[in-house]
């Protein structure tokens, strides 16, 4: 494996976010992949280091294995190319019901508009319910997935409007109000696991699968050229920092090339989008 890395300025923060998200995807895992950057991140992971991850989307295709002649990531979760090489072509009951809610999705890659201190996601609205500053598309499958999947990887740019002490609206259960929150709500204890952004990757303080620990987001890895203070300046609460805080490697040249190929001229990463 080459270890040639891209130099600063040769990639965008959005590209680093996708690459950092892809790096959270493990080979051999069955993964439910959400709309937007997750489709691209998971495709990158599959081609780059996780050829045996089971790439599944909620409209029904399970285990998408694209042929290499058409290296572009699916545009949506019902993109017809998802049937390419798939092991199973079913419907939403199969994908979100049997696969996700039935407990067979080992991980998930999701985007959201907001995340909060305890990993709750928001894809519903900004502002208040009666007077939203912006109505968002809604939860899609995020709420379904967050309720059932034990290793949720979320991805979004690191921005103060997105990182909230409490999400404006909790669309998708993280650890809710902290330890014991999920159990009290009637959910299995383990919730979100990682959040990859444009500046860093967060983990969660859940040493025991959500049963103990503060269940708060914890800064885990910082990207090249980003300082701890810069991250802390964005996050509006007293951010926990991992005692093993690390620095993430910049994109490898091959990751970056592959990503750009998969994005096929900006399908996902149109300038100004992230």
């Amino acid at each position, binding site marked *: 494996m080459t270890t040639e890395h891209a130099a600063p300025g040769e990639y965008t923060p959005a590209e680093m976010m996708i690459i950092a998200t892809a790096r959270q995807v493990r080979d051999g895992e069955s993964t439910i992949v959400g709309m937007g950057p997750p489709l691209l991140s998971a495709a990158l992971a599959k081609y780059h280091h996780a050829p045996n991850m089971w790439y599944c989307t909620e409209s029904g295709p399970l285990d998408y294995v694209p042929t290499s002649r058409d290296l572009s990531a699916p545009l949506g979760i019902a993109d*017809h190319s998802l049937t390419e090489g798939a092991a199973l072509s079913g419907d939403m009951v199969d994908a979100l019901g049997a696969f996700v809610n039935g407990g067979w999705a080992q991980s998930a890659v999701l985007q959201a508009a907001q995340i909060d201190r305890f990993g709750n996601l928001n894809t519903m609205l900004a502002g208040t319910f009666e007077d*939203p500053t912006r109505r968002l598309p*809604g939860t*899609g499958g995020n709420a379904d997935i967050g309720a059932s999947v034990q290793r949720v990887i979320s991805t979004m740019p690191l921005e103060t409007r997105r990182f909230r002490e409490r999400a404006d609206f909790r669309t998708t259960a993280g650890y809710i109000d902290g330890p014991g929150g999920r159990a009290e*709500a009637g959910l299995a204890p383990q919730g979100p696991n990682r959040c990859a952004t444009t500046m860093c990757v967060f983990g969660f303080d859940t040493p025991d699968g959500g049963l103990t620990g503060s269940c708060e987001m914890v800064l885990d890895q910082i990207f090249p050229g980003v300082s701890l203070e810069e991250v802390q300046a964005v996050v509006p609460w007293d951010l926990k920092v991992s005692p093993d805080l690390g620095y993430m490697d910049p994109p490898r040249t091959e990751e970056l090339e592959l990503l750009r190929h998969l994005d096929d001229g900006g399908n996902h990463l149109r300038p100004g989008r992230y």
Partner: protein
Amino acid sequence: MTAREAVERFVSDGDTIYSGFNIISFALTNEIIRQGVKGLKAVAGSVTPNVTIMSIDGNVDRIETGYLSGTLRSKPFQEMMRDGRVKWNDYTNMTITLRLMAGGLGMPFICANSFLGTDYLLPETMNHSRSLQEDRRREDGSVAPPYAVINSPFDGRKALLYPALKPDVAIVHCQRADEEGNVQVWGPQADTKWGLWSSKNVLVTAEEIVPRSVISTEPHFTIAPGFKVSAVIHEPWGAHPGGLNGYYRADRSWYELTGAGMTTWESAREYLDEWVYGTEDHSEYISRYKKRFGEELLNSLRVKEFMGPEQPARYGWR
């Protein structure tokens, strides 16, 4: 039957209409607009731009869905969602699909964990000022909740119930159907099957009408049998500008070329006047496309590479 006859006969003001997440009949969408049907409630796992289009003139004024897919780029639609001209309650991709399944299976409600621990369970969410409270009003005047938590009579644990959905009418485009109304679909199916089974009337546009023997030799592709289907209309390119697995890709330039994105009231108006009210039917719509943008552009959408069975499964019993 023509799309016009089907809509005249089977779509009424105030109906709940299923138009899915995938394989959308724009042919029927446009006909509903032409006929000026009013006050529809749109339900689907995700609603798509055809619902935005149907909202501009009030064909659709209520929505129950999990996701507004590609609809929010429309300022008019955003405006109507905010000021209450369009009313809505939010669910999820899975819970709407399960609600349709429950409707299709004759169940009053169905379980899903999806909203446990979220703000969807707050009373102010369930009954916000633009919500569908009136649709949930019981005979005694009280309002049924959009979903409800009970304790399981088996293990006492919390269980979240969602009520069944039984639309009045479903519209869908499919790859092929026969004269009896057997409908075949392949590719990602999302909420389609249960959208069709749960609906009282099912209106289908089909890319191809095939003999029954084509259906019968691949009966695993049938998602709704003939007795479940009210009307089948032969409508080539019936999903355009959406795509159809095995036939054509989605027309991604369409929304910008024509204003179908409904981004402003003006562009919405222009689009509707030219492409919906300005065409008699889907066949004229496709003719106009060819005239305006050239047959080549349309043909460039056609699928050129196919995937057929490597070792076809064969039925056999004697």
